[in-house]
């Protein structure tokens, strides 16, 4: 008897018995209603089945052509960042009751996931200063798209304001999201010295019909937007919502956007307990104030607390599902169904492990490492680090115009020494010249940073 497949327990003999019992002559009979013209009569042009051992070797060999962070010193950031994930976070999130479960439509048997989501939502609210957060979106970029749509729904405004120095990937994604209702995107410029948003240009644009004003804090280029209180005030005076985008790692150290007037806070939750994974899966954070007008317009899954009907036992269930696609269909707040649920649970476990002190110390460590790197790098002749005279968190710009070398050349030389330089910015921000975006985290040791500095000094010297 031929051996069955490990994932298909009903072997040939059992299938024959089953067919007999249901009165079917063959399995082909069950596919007889597929018109002959479109029946696939050949084998799929794919490799033959491989044993687990062979597949493991095959995939490992392909992946070995990658140079991971753990093998090559890298200073990349810009939307996905390297942070140490404690071993127990990974272990817990791979428990099969979590990993192999589905959306908790049957709350009675899924309290584990539901409570984990509630805890995630809660911790995001504490971090961001909001009152309600959803159980995840795909990533920061799509959260931004959804935030713009939500602002338009709530205010009936047709324009959405963003900073010129917005992440290009996020802006591109935003363009697609607002294309449905044809919202207009308006970019506000910045002070060339400090990077800060041009408030007078903002005020000029804040006429009628503005749905929302969006800033990233820290910005895509790493500096802090210090005028957030004024921006919030200006937005609100114009009847617009104030949306802030964040890297949550910074929120152990930095003030919650809710404390400076944000109505909606979005961001990238990947650094909370999830590896970079080549840019996916990520974790879109989405939170808002407890205002009936806002909460009911939030996209995504929401888990709420309730009790058993006798009021005695606390439990959790998906709530306000009438916003969602499975009930509202074309009038849903969003089409989102599956999201980044398990990444959100990883984030909850990570935050529960760090606590307020751990997150603060982590933020301080990242900022300290970045500061050290900036001090040492700016001492190299020809380099301007950072290009903006403003406080920075853990990312910064590095300009090499005066060296006569391009960022591309610099990075190529660095790569020869097994160091990956920062992201070149010239193609998306030509006015910044030969500038790259660098990121430093708790992952980098002093020796790592010194290694980078020495290598650069040698290259430009």
């Amino acid at each position, binding site marked *: 008897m031929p051996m069955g497949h490990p994932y298909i327990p009903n072997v040939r003999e059992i299938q024959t018995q089953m067919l007999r019992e249901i009165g079917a002559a063959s399995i082909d009979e069950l596919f007889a209603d597929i018109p002959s013209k479109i029946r696939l009569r050949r084998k799929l042009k794919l490799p033959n089945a491989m044993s687990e051992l062979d597949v493991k070797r095959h995939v490992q060999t392909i992946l070995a052509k990658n140079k991971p962070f753990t093998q090559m010193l890298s200073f990349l950031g810009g939307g996905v960042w390297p942070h140490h994930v404690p071993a*127990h976070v990974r272990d817990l999130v791979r428990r099969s009751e979590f990993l192999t479960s589905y959306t908790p439509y049957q709350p009675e048997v899924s309290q584990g996931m539901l409570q984990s989501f509630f805890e995630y939502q809660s911790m995001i609210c504490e971090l961001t200063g909001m009152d309600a957060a959803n159980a995840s979106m795909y990533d920061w970029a799509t959260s931004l798209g959804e935030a713009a749509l939500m602002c338009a729904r709530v205010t009936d405004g047709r324009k959405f304001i963003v900073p010129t120095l917005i992440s290009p990937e996020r802006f591109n994604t935003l363009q697609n999201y607002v294309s449905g209702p044809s919202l207009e995107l308006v970019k506000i410029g910045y002070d060339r010295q400090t990077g800060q948003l041009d408030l007078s240009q903002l005020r000029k644009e804040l006429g009628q019909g503005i749905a929302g004003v969006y800033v990233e804090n820290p910005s895509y280029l790493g500096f802090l937007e210090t005028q957030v209180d004024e921006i919030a005030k200006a937005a609100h005076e114009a009847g617009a919502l104030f949306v802030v985008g964040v890297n949550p790692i910074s929120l152990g150290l930095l003030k919650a956007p809710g404390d400076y007037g944000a109505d909606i806070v979005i961001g990238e939750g990947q650094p909370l307990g999830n590896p970079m994974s080549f840019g996916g899966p990520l974790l879109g954070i989405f939170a808002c104030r407890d205002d009936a007008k806002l909460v009911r317009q939030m996209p995504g899954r929401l888990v709420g607390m309730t009790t058993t009907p006798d009021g005695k036992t606390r439990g959790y269930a998906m709530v306000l599902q009438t916003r969602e696609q499975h009930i509202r269909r074309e009038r849903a707040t969003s089409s989102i169904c599956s999201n980044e649920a398990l990444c959100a649970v990883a984030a909850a476990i990570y935050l529960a492990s760090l606590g307020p002190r751990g997150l603060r110390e982590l933020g301080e460590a990242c900022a300290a490492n970045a500061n050290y790197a900036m001090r040492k790098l700016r001492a190299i002749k020809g380099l301007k680090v950072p290009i903006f005279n403003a406080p920075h968190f853990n990312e910064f710009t590095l300009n090499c115009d005066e060296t006569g070398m391009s960022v591309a050349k610099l990075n190529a030389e660095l790569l020869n020494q097994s160091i990956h330089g920062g992201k070149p910015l010239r193609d998306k921000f030509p006015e910044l010249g030969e500038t790259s975006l660098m990121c430093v985290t708790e992952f980098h040791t002093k020796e790592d940073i010194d290694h980078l500095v020495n290598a650069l000094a040698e290259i430009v010297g």
Partner: protein
Amino acid sequence: MTSYRQARWVGEDGLEPLVFELGKPGRTGYTLPPKLHEQLNLPKHLIREKLELPELSEIEVVRHYTRLSQMNYGIDSGIYPLGSCTMKYNPKICEELASLDTAAHIHPYQSEETIQGALELMYKLERCLAEIAGVDRVCLHPSAGAHGEFTAMLLTRAYHKFRGDGVRTQVIVPDSAHGTNPASAAMAGYEVVTVPSDARGRVDLKALETAASERTAALMLTNPNTLGLFEDKILKIAKIIHDVGGLLFYDGANLNGILGKARPGDMGFDIVHFNLHKTFSTPHGGGGPGAGPVGVKDELEKFLPVPVIEHEEKRKFYYLNYDRPHSIGKVKAFYGNFGVLVKAYTYILLMGASGLREVSEAAVLNANYIMRKLLGTKGYELKFDAGGPCKHEVVFSAEPLKRETGVGARDVSKRLLDYGMHAPTYYFPPIVSEALMIEPTECEPREELDRFVGALKNIAEEARSNPEKLRSAPTATAIGRLDEVKASREPILSWKMYRKHRA
């Protein structure tokens, strides 16, 4: 197995306490290497003063989430026959490979020579999916099915705009469609037109002919449909839509029913999407992460999101191509859920060409087995096409049981939980009242199918002799039914709102 009891940790107010109710000041589950001493110079008005997060030691964190996991049910726990979700077994080797350093610790901004492995794997996965679906080019960017559908709608719009055809304002969707279809079309700015299903449970061709016009941008179709029935008139459907100049979009949620037996590309579909977390066995994770790649025929290839992965034969070099003037741009920040893509690619290699076909054959046999075994059981009926075979899923109606006993699909589903099985999808699709949408997948052993059918029959009997047993179900799970009305009337969505509510 003769009985079932889910773990149940009970605290003061309910089950396991909230993480905020655990821990003590000073405890931590985290250690950091020594910090550099640097003067930070951050503006005072932006420094945080207080952060209310719990302080737990590592053992408390581990126990808390271990206990929570015990009060949860996954495919590894037992049968999970949710219709159109394809809850199949998630091979552990896929997990192992996706967590290798060389998969997990790479950054999307890395220069191409340092990520050749990632690009090669994605390129090869694209080619595999293109072959499986019968399309020309695949984009792996979308993070979920709905995201793939939204992308497909953007591609549709770009296609018609490129042709200078500005009157295409409508997208047609069958009344049995999954909610994400009309929602995604609406998000892309389309007006949604719904067409009814006929007495055989398929798209009503007459209604479709009436609905199709020069304003039709596309028809979104799942095949097999959400009733588990193959749209056997698909070639006619394709002609109706193509004749008016519209595009045909394939919702790949039910691909498990025809893998290796038929291909949407051969049926006339112009755009397809895949659910890697369904057909290709990547774990559902409680609602994600998944992946919803999109495949297109040649004439739509130019509109695909950037970047596109290209392979330079001579140098054997993979690179990211951004030079795509007609591209719709980006639908998310980077290139897709790579961690999920590794698992799907691994799965395809594990199954191989013949294995994938065996998957759909076994899945379809399992569903038909359940259908035949349950058919004729008083209380459950098939609303559509009881004469023919179903594909990988079958939708029964518990309407007769409801009429007879007062308890229906919802109560049956809740009672199934007491048998240690997960309930099927109920109340969907909306065109079947008291619907029970059952998809066993190819991974269920025959004994499990027998147990499942036996349980449904038993429960029908219980409904007659002791309906209260169903109404009060489940009792073997960590918690019984919850007051979901109260939950939505006074939403408590966070610890913060809970504290306010209690005060």
